[in-house]
């Protein structure tokens, strides 16, 4: 195979920075007054420019995918520069099998959102700036291997979404933004406190300050300390996921967010919570994580069933899809807690699949909203006859969402549940309730929107998907089928990383338990 890194060796060591740099560049360019004169009122030029620029991360992502070595369990494409030497803070980036596909998902979703954001109109530049900023922050969060760097990017993710919902949102957007930001911030602040406590303990043990994940992984804490720190991290991540009962910000945020915001929120941002558990929560505090995993799993299953029931009770399409996310992320929490390679691989697959399917669903809701300016299910009905292409895309997204085999959702859900079954058989069987309920609420939604007579006069004039909307939905549909039929390219790139991840946590937990029993830990 053609090895591009042989030709351009510096590329390999700066690839990840490119992922952060180009969105940042896009953000700056969009805000730059120099570009002001070349935007026309409907924002088409700004959109075109942004679309082209957003292809750069996609290309980098593709490069990462091809050049990723599935045999290496650790970090690849690492970059490391000292940032604040006196505090042991460094600009350390790396990607492994756990983060690779979330990076790719983000890189895929952003261009599709840009293509499909024609409704924004004159303020397109600001909107695009927010999207780029968000993309940068997400990439940073996924790639950072230094806890402070991670924390900075983690908090930066809030800013653009705050603006997107607050400026381009619906009627109750202020309530939704405030709720969303306060909720998330409350969790993050606790995480920050826990983070500083961990760094301070590390300083007390080793005599040097370091925020590096690889250093802090060797932290020796008493079980009580570990538990408190884990709970603080878990709270921050749990709010982001969101784990029931910390979820009520999500439906409000989704309902008020513009289409693009919803797609990114459901597609990418929620997964940051799960990713946080993978990258930091479990490896940093393995003993506490193992101890509390059953409770976490139970909360996940509660989320699966509760989210499904909530979705069933909704009359607003977007709120329904939002609650379906709560339900699906519940599977992820369950699989995450099982700490087996199969379940963890399933979780990663499920996250990607959920990003594609729910992203598509939110685009679909957006299509309807742009035409009719309502999200009430009862306002629709009988659209299938009017909008056949739309009906097809909606059907595929629905089927992926209820995890029909040969769609991507099935592989993720099956692996997650099959992997979890070994550790939590009863909980997993309970989670199957969500599988049945998923069909209930999604098919009820589909039936009420698409089937029946076309009895509302306003719906008689609805147009089928425009070219732009089709262009945004078709890649998602193709990916849903492609991953459902050929999941192996994804799974084989995650497997070694996950194996290393699981064995590392088990080994560390065992080591720390031995450490405690010998009495040294208590002396700390």
């Amino acid at each position, binding site marked *: 195979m053609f090895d591009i890194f042989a030709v351009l060796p510096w590329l390999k060591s700066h690839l990840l920075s490119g992922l952060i740099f180009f969105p940042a560049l896009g953000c700056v360019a969009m805000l730059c007054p120099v570009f002001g004169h070349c935007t026309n009122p409907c924002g088409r030029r700004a959109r075109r420019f942004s679309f082209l620029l957003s292809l750069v991360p996609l290309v980098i992502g593709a490069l990462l995918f091809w050049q990723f070595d599935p045999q290496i369990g650790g970090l690849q494409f690492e970059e490391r520069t000292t940032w604040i030497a006196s505090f042991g803070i460094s600009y350390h980036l790396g990607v492994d099998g756990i983060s690779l596909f979330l990076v790719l998902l983000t890189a895929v979703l952003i261009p599709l959102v840009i293509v499909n954001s024609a409704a924004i109109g004159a303020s397109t530049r600001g909107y695009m700036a927010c999207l780029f900023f968000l993309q940068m922050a997400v990439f940073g969060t996924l790639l950072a291997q230094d806890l402070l760097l991670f924390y900075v990017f983690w908090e930066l993710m809030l800013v653009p979404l705050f603006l997107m919902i607050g400026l381009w949102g619906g009627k109750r957007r202020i309530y939704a933004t405030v709720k969303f930001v306060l909720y998330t911030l409350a969790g993050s602040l606790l995480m920050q406190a826990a983070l500083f406590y961990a760094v301070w303990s590390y300083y007390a043990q080793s005599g040097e300050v370091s925020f590096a994940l690889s250093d802090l992984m060797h932290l020796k804490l008493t079980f009580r300390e570990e538990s408190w720190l884990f709970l603080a991290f878990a709270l921050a991540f749990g709010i982001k996921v969101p784990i029931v009962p910390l979820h009520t910000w999500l439906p409000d945020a989704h309902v008020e967010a513009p289409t693009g915001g919803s797609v990114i929120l459901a597609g990418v941002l929620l997964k940051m919570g799960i990713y946080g558990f993978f990258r930091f929560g479990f490896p940093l505090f393995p003993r506490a994580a193992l101890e509390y995993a059953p409770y976490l799993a139970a909360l996940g299953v509660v989320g699966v069933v509760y989210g499904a029931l*909530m979705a069933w*009770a909704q009359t607003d399409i977007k709120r329904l899809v939002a609650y379906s996310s709560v339900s699906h992320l519940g599977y992820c929490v369950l699989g995450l807690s099982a700490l087996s390679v199969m379940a963890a691989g399933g979780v990663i697959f499920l996250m990607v699949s959920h990003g594609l399917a729910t992203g598509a669903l939110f685009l679909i809701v957006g299509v309807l909203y742009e035409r009719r300016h309502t999200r009430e299910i009862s306002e629709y009905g009988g659209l299938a006859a009017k909008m056949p292409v739309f009906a097809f895309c909606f059907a595929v997204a629905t089927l992926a969402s209820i995890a029909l085999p040969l769609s991507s959702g*099935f*592989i993720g859900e099956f692996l997650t549940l099959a992997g979890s079954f070994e550790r939590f058989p009863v909980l*997993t069987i309970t989670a199957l309730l969500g599988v049945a309920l998923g069909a209930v609420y999604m098919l009820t939604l589909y039936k009420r929107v698409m089937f029946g007579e076309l009895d509302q006069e306003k719906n008689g004039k609805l147009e089928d998907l425009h070219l732009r909307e089709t262009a945004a939905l078709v890649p998602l549909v193709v990916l849903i089928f492609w991953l459902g039929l050929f999941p192996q390219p994804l799974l084989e790139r995650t497997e070694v990383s996950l*194996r290393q991840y699981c064995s590392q946590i088990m080994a560390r937990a065992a080591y720390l338990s031995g450490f405690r029993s010998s009495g040294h830990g208590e002396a700390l």
Partner: protein
Amino acid sequence: MRIISTEILIWILLLPLMGALFSYAVGKWRQGLCGWLATGAAAATFGVVVGTVLYLPSGATLEQQLYTWVALDTLSVSFTLRFDRLTAVMALVVSGVGTLIHLYAIGYMAEDPGRPRFFSYFNLFLFSMLLLVLGGNLLVLFAGWEGVGLCSYLLIGFWYDHLPNAAAGRKAFVVNRIGDTGFLAGLFLLLHYFGTLDIALLESVFSGDAGLLNLIAACFFLGATGKSAQIPLFVWLPDAMAGPTPVSALIHAATMVTAGVYLMARLHFVFSAAPALMLLIVIIALVTALIAALIALMQNDIKKVLAYSTISQLGFMFMAAGVGAYGAAIFHLVTHSFFKAGLFLAAGSVIHGTKNEQDMRRLGGLRKYMPWTFAVYLISAVAISGIYPLAGYYSKHAIMEALAHSEQYGVLDLPEIFSTMAAVVACLTAFYITRSLMLTFCGTYRGEGVVHESPLVMLLPIGVLALLAVSGGIWLERVLPLYLGDPWPQPSGPTGEVSFFSALLHSWPGILGMLGGYLCYSWCSGWPAKICCALPPLSRLIEGKFFIDEIYAAVIVRPLEASARALWKFVDRGLIDGSLNGLAWSAGMCGETLRRVHTGKINHYALFIFAAAVLITVFGCGR
């Protein structure tokens, strides 16, 4: 078992899949072509299947490993297709009867503007069903299993502008989904305890303690009850009649609903290892067959009669499988696909000829207008009644024999009870089918408008099916047991050597039922009403279909929906959001209250300072 790898099996799947794509694409361009294209694809599939069957050496299994589908950690699932004799029988039925029904549908759907979609789904169904029977790995089988469920959903709700149709489709999918959770749980158990989902591998390692084996079998049986409409999950099948009649014939009579029986035959080693569950299966199957037959007695919609009849006949197949006579179950599956498809298509011909009239109270006397349809319906009715020498006799008799030779259970004389009940059900079957025959084709026409016989393209397939219903039993009885061979043997019953009269004697339940039905609906037409009046509670119970839908709605669906709404209102909005907003509000109120302290008046501040000084002094000195 010899395994021969081959490249041909993928074509059995690709042909209908390509048919699905092309018939839609071509249909958009030229509507008239799509039906012929889809039928061509089905016929080509049948051709490939026949070729494969002819090539299949005795005692061997053809195998094609396409690629590794899912592999992670200990799990490894390759996309394996296997073709053994059980698959051969199933694939022949699916593609053969499927082709006939495709041909019929060209005539039946001739004026429907949605034809491209219809034939595309129809081909897609063939693909899924063949994937189901070819799957050599349970996960691949499950993909087909869900695929047929999807096609069933799409085709039940084919005329989606009428909301009850869409609701029926959704009901079918959801009820099947409940069964599928059982299937999934079974997969998890197998994976956990045996580490593989490959059927051939599983068969070689399958053993364990009785509780576990019963549990695994129970999980898969739950899946089978969903797909094959047995108690407790049979409620979707009558509603599924909302789909076009060819759909009812192909999916909801001949093929898809028999997937549960196929699953039991395919996983015979799982079920045979769970004797306690097998007893339960026989009982469930008997009760299902009885209840469905009773309900069929009082239905007025000709398709509903046939739907309940299908449930009842599936009960027969499960009885056979439940006593370990998988061969007899498959035998009945095959003959049933002939005569039930014939009945449905004849009913469809009636509906077509009378401009969508399904209510038998407004039919009647059609014998004169539709002689060919009548002939097919009559032949199929005699066949389903199990009267010698038509197909139903042989397969039903095989099941009766299997029941009569089943094992004793304690003091209960189970074989006797089972065969008596089965005979009663067989008698009821003959009665209700004769009733539908009489009401539809005899007497005088009670509807309006002109009735016409269906075109040749519809009569030809049902003619073939009628021929099969007549002759199928005779040759299948000789061929099938030998062909299926070891794992799916047939019980040794009376073979072709039996004399004509003793065979007729053995078909007594059918003859009795048909005679009764004939009498009740010709000479003594007042009797049914009198019987109903004599037994008011029972007749109301039967007329209300045992109120099972209502009970499910009252006990499961509505409480669940109400609790979802209540949770949403009181927990999500009320408790969680309420306490959060309360927290925010109280924080705001604290600020608001404290703000008042900052009045900006110097004398107020002086007062505060003085008060603070006093307090500090008092408490400071008090210590």
